[in-house]
């Protein structure tokens, strides 16, 4: 179980670094990309936590979060591509 705990710590640090890159990213697609990476890391974090605590309901939460993250990425980039220009 110690390897799962070390994985949780590494994922937390990686999420923090991705969030720093999200704050300083030059263009808006960089920010969307970093939001995508944070979403994937949140899914992995919740799955590891579900195995660590032996809790079944957290896996359903991870599936729902994956669907919501994919819809967010697709609709946000389509909205930027058609409507709101940056420059």
């Amino acid at each position, binding site marked *: 179980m110690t*390897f799962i705990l070390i994985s949780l710590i590494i994922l937390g640090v990686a999420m923090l670094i*991705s969030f720093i890159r999200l704050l300083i990213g030059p263009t808006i697609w960089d920010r969307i*990309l970093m939001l*995508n990476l944070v979403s994937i890391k949140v*899914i*992995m974090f919740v799955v590891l936590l*579900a195995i660590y605590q032996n809790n079944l309901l957290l*896996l359903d939460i991870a599936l729902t979060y*994956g669907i919501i993250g994919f819809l967010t990425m*697709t609709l946000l980039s389509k909205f930027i591509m058609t409507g709101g220009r940056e420059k």
Partner: protein
Amino acid sequence: MSIVTDIILAFSWIFIVFGMIAVFKFKNMYSRILAATTIDTVASLLMLIALFFTVDNFKFIIRIILLILFLFITNPISSHVIIRSAFITGIPVSTGGEKNE
């Protein structure tokens, strides 16, 4: 807790650390997107496959298989949509060096 889980989890740590280095190292945006999404997809799939060996309940196994299929389908689609939006809306693909951002 089997030894196979520990080995595959250690491989996934290496991929996560390389992905975080590649996000800060590249100057061009398309190479940054390519490196970040590819490395992160491999890391997430490795981590889910590693957890596949340590559970013994059937309910956990069917949900982990669903998550592996879902991430394997939707993760490249998401990165492709971001790259398509960036290419249509403005940023040109750099051919020579790493000058234009």
